[in-house]
């Protein structure tokens, strides 16, 4: 232990000394107490007044400190630094508020019976202990299942076309897939309504909703798959081709197995994107209060639809049900979201 006396002790001369930190410390104190004093002394009351005064005080003290110690440019730098931190804080505040409200308002209604009952035999103003949202969960499972079945092959084929085949229209397809991700969800619903109901004369059912969701899911699957496929080293492809394999064999037996977990991530990300979509469902699944096990016939429900319906009913119990539905919906979305991240991170892949 004590043998290595010649080793120089690492020093960090740029490290701020307590003395140089003193003005910053005083500045923080001035900001804190100044804010309290101003809020107490002037009519600027409430959280809003407090936040505004705090931001202004922080800007003022840091800028004055920098101006005194250095120059005007340093003062400007301090001002913008405070503003950038404030912007970052403003992003977090709504998220915390949303999650907090969902948990406090929604989680309280969670009980076993909401997973066992539907709303077919329950009045909308019955207390939360009666009825449930099993029908909505079943509807959402159907929607996710059928939307994935349609959009997974199409999305992955689009990615294969861009990355593997590199066809004449690769750039165009890429561009249009990007444009497709910006389609308003309501337009997808209108489109399915025009084809399914007006064109083919069908009635509302879960499959129509799934078709609308598939349209919204394809771009997410395609773009994520594209990035995953691009990460597969070219050596693998060249090795396959050098062994005399056809391109089809190379892709099917080398590229896709190598990219498997990434492709699964892409599908799960797509599911997370569409699981909470509401607008297209309003036009396609019709809504139901009871369980409908047939996805191809008859009105069905879904978690977002359940929330929407109870929100429009507006009574106190209905709003409680809406918060409950949102809680379950958020849990579902976050399960898929976390799954996608864990799977994506396991391979060390980006996104």
């Amino acid at each position, binding site marked *: 232990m004590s043998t290595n006396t010649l080793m120089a002790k690492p020093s960090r001369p740029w490290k701020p000394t307590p003395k140089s930190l003193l003005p910053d410390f005083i500045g923080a104190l001035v900001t804190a107490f100044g804010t309290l004093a101003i809020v107490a002394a002037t009519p600027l009351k409430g959280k*809003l007044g407090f936040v505004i005064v705090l931001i202004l005080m922080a800007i003022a003290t840091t800028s004055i400190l920098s101006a005194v110690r250095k120059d005007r*440019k340093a003062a*400007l*730098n301090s001002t*913008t*630094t405070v503003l*950038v*931190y404030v*912007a*970052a804080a403003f*992003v*977090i505040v709504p*998220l915390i*508020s*949303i999650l907090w*409200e*969902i948990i406090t308002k929604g989680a309280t209604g969670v009980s076993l019976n909401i997973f066992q009952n539907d709303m077919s035999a329950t009045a909308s103003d019955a207390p939360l202990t009666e009825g449930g949202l099993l029908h909505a969960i079943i509807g959402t499972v159907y929607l996710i299942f059928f939307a994935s079945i349609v959009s997974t092959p*199409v999305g992955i*084929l*689009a990615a*294969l*076309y*861009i990355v*593997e*085949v590199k066809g004449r*229209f*690769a750039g*165009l*397809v890429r561009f249009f897939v*990007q444009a*497709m991700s*910006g*389609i*308003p*969800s*309501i*337009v997808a619903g*209108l489109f399915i309504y*025009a084809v399914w109901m*007006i*064109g083919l004369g069908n009635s509302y059912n879960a499959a129509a909703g799934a078709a609308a969701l598939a349209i919204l899911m*394809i*771009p997410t699957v395609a773009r994520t798959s594209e990035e995953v496929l691009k990460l597969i080293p070219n050596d693998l492809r060249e090795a396959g081709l050098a062994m005399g394999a*056809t*391109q*089809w*064999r190379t892709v099917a037996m080398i590229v896709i197995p190598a990219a498997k977990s990434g492709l699964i991530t892409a599908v799960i990300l797509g599911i997370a*994107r569409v699981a*909470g*979509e*509401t*607008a297209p469902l*309003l*036009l396609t699944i019709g809504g139901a209060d009871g369980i409908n096990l047939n996805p191809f016939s008859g009105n069905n429900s879904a978690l*977002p639809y359940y*929330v929407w319906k109870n929100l429009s009913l507006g009574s106190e119990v209905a709003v409680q049900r809406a*918060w409950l539905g*949102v809680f379950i919906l*958020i849990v579902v979305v976050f399960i898929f*979201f976390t799954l996608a991240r864990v799977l994506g991170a396991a391979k060390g892949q980006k996104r």
Partner: protein
Amino acid sequence: MSTTTAGPKTIPKPREITTTPRFSDKVFRAVVTVGGLSSLAILALIAFFLVFNGFETFRSEGISFLTGFEWADAIPEEGIAASYGVGAMLYGTLVIGLLALVFGVPIAVGTALFLSYYAPEWLKKPMVVVIDVMAAIPSVVFGLWGYFILMPHAEYWAKLIHKYLGFIPIFDMPANAYSRSPFIAGLVLAIMIIPIVTSISREVFAQTPLDRIQAAYALGATKWAMIKAVVFPYGRGGVVGGAMLGLGRALGETVAVYTVLNLVYDIRIEVLLSAGGSVASMIVNKFGEADAPELRALMAAGFVLFLVTLIVNFIANYIISKTERKG
């Protein structure tokens, strides 16, 4: 060689060397091409079916479909013809979209700067997760939260704005109706577009050449001076493109806007007043009790919305890809 008692040695025939794809490859390429082109096909089909179903409306209304303020069914008993126009709703859509940009983009760009240049290492990853989580929250959740939680606060802010800035026409308030205004819808939309604007801005900021950044520091620039002189000129296109992508999202948002906005068929410049418009919300609003002619008009409105968002997205993607290539 010495082991077997093999008969005549058959030399395997060398494979034919050719660049023409084999049959399996032809099938493979055909299938993948069809899959790849399906996105184009879907977009074309959407456009076709919406135009096909809304054609009657386009023909009978003509240009007044885009400029008219009125959305009224026919009343045959009184001999009043139907009149459908999305002008007021289009205007309202643009207003809340622009408000969302005004509130959202500065915060998003500030956050992107924070993540790229200010945040301590340990904070970066959780913060990126936070923004991804925000992007994953469904719009109906934003609607519920916006209506019950944000609205009471936002009404108070609107009253303050009116009190101190009421002399500016857009902050004027003819009636005491602060709830469900374009201002509040813009706030909710701003929160919804922050994730996408932030992530695009962050991507382009990350491509700022490091040597320029270090050169700026070496010349004694402060962090802000460096950002102003190096990061912004390189990333400007990306930020504009990201903002336009956000605008596209905001224009097409339905459920959240429907919940927090009071639809009124009128063009009002007062953004704090409880009266606004949104094409997407109008479609949901009118869809439930629409008869055949009104349904056709809704299809036409959907086509207009589709076209507007598509154009905005095209421009945004073009700007972003140009910026990324430069960087």
